[in-house]
């Protein structure tokens, strides 16, 4: 029994790391640009395909191709902000949500046109291996993914805390008008924020590739969980999203173990709704709106 629980906790934390990369991106965009990006899951998909083709065409290990997928999607993010999101910033929630929703539909179907619906996997030396510690085990590919996810989250935190651009980003998030009076160009800050968010999603894709199949609809698997984590951890709060994602990974895993394999999501959603009854602004929201 103890072993089972320990294993369930490990499994939950490991997948929570992946949820974190997706949800941190969503929360970063919301925090700075105030737009909920429904297409974030499709960016993960793009990251997966990038790594897939790097591996199959160029023989690059998916973990190394992180160095390609992240900058590539950073640029995509900058363009996305500049050409699309910027145009709907003043229009309110609904056009924004549906613009990103349309974008997610577009990306899915373009992927379908380009790559067909085939499930694509790559086999690395560490794909199916695990470290066994007594009766419990840790899958190597997932451990690496978790480690890199935590490292990237930490780097983002350091960036936001210590660099001028990071501080400017936080300032813009808290008060965009006054930050302009400080000489901060919101277009630049917003573009960097969206770029970083997409780079993180791209990283999630690359990290998933050694153990998860890529296909055009794969983004759907992660996006709902990411949204719940983002809200639970208080929209716009990067640390909150990280902690909430790990919590949800664990809750899902325990739910599957002790309530039923068809109830992992029910447990997560109930936890989510109960939390919102107690704290309408999420776990880390305090009293502010």
């Amino acid at each position, binding site marked *: 029994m103890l072993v089972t629980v320990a294993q369930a906790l490990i499994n939950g934390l490991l997948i929570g790391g992946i949820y974190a990369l997706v949800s941190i991106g969503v929360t970063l965009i919301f925090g700075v640009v105030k737009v909920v990006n429904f297409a974030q899951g499709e960016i993960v998909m793009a990251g997966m395909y990038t790594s897939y083709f790097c591996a199959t065409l160029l023989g690059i290990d998916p973990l190394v191709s992180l160095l390609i997928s992240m900058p590539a999607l950073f640029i995509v993010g900058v363009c996305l902000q500049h050409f699309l999101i910027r145009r709907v910033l003043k229009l309110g929630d609904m*056009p924004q949500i549906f613009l990103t929703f349309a*974008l997610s539909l577009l990306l899915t179907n373009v992927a379908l046109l380009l790559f067909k619906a085939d499930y694509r996997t790559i086999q690395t030396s560490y794909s199916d291996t695990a470290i066994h510690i007594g009766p419990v085990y840790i899958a190597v590919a997932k451990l690496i993914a978790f480690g890199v996810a935590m490292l990237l989250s930490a780097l983002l935190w350091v960036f936001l805390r210590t660099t001028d651009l990071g501080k400017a980003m936080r300032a813009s998030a808290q008060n965009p008008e006054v930050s302009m009076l400080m000489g901060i160009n919101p277009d630049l800050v917003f573009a960097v924020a969206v770029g970083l968010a997409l780079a993180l999603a791209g990283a999630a894709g690359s990290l998933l590739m050694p153990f998860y199949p890529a296909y055009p609809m794969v983004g759907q698997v992660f996006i709902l969980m990411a949204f719940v984590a983002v809200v639970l951890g208080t929209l716009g709060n990067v640390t909150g999203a990280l902690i909430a994602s790990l919590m949800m990974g664990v809750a899902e895993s325990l739910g599957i173990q002790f309530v039923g394999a068809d109830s992992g999501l029910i447990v997560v959603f109930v936890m989510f709704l109960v939390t919102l009854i107690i704290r309408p*602004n999420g776990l880390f929201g305090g009293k502010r709106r």
Partner: protein
Amino acid sequence: MSGKFSRKTLWLSVLFALMLLLPQFVTSRFYMDIVIRVLLFSFIGVAWNLMGGYAKQLSLGHAAYFGLGAYTSTMLQINYGISPWIGMIAGGGVAMLASLPIGALCFRLRGPYFTISTIAMAQVLMLLFLKFRDFAWGAEGTTIPNLGDAPWMMQFEEKAAYFYIALALLVVGLVVTWAVERSWMGYYLVALGEDEDAAQAIGVNVPKMKRHIYLISTFLTALAGTFYIQYIYFIDPPTAFSFNISVEAALVSIVGGIGTLWGPVVGTVLLEVTSTLLQSWLGGGHGGVQLTVYSLILMAVILWRPAGLLGLITDVYHRIFGNKQQSEQEAALDG
């Protein structure tokens, strides 16, 4: 402005008469099917728009009520042989009852918090219907027994009958919206939609307003659920609680023009017709083309006409029939 009013009435009467006669002209089952779906989704959009458009509560969980309506009537029909006509009203009642606790929870939240909580609610309902297999056929779902031509059981050989039901639903939805728009409730809703705190401050009972409009909106949505299942002959949780229904309801309103009487109708005509025609031209064989084009059209509309296409249509209408000043006034009212 009485001249304008009478002209509008005239146009509406002509339109309505044409609609009544439509089955005489359209004999193709395919085109009839498009028309029926346009009417149905317009109705769903109109129901959503009451809450999403006027009170600006962006719910993406209306599939919950669509599904509850659908399941209520189907279970009454198959388990007890009760007519879907009665089941439809019962479904509406169940949806209204369910909206009370769900509303009590979700309305505590605002903005994206509210939206995502509504998605979660609809998902939980779907997962529960999947989980409790003995309650209502579980994941396997069930087909509606084929009774041939049985009007009392809402089954018809001819598409025209489905057309008239869908048309009647839409008319009900529009009349309700029209009545709400013109009542004190309409003003309060718009006020709270613009700024909740300010509305509360000037004495609008915001929670009560939200609760009331939610009751109306969910009741209508549930009616659509019953009709839909009778029309496609099949029910299972992913169909009845489909996220697509929630999205479509909001989408048609946004594309047409939210918080306007005719917005959802205009939006549905554009989106449903486009998607069906794209499907029949491009579908089959070349996976993804039709939805790619569809999403591009969607993005173009949102970027080009964020307030919805209805404004554009009234503009054009007044450019042809009226003077420019009038059209500006109209646009201001609609925007």
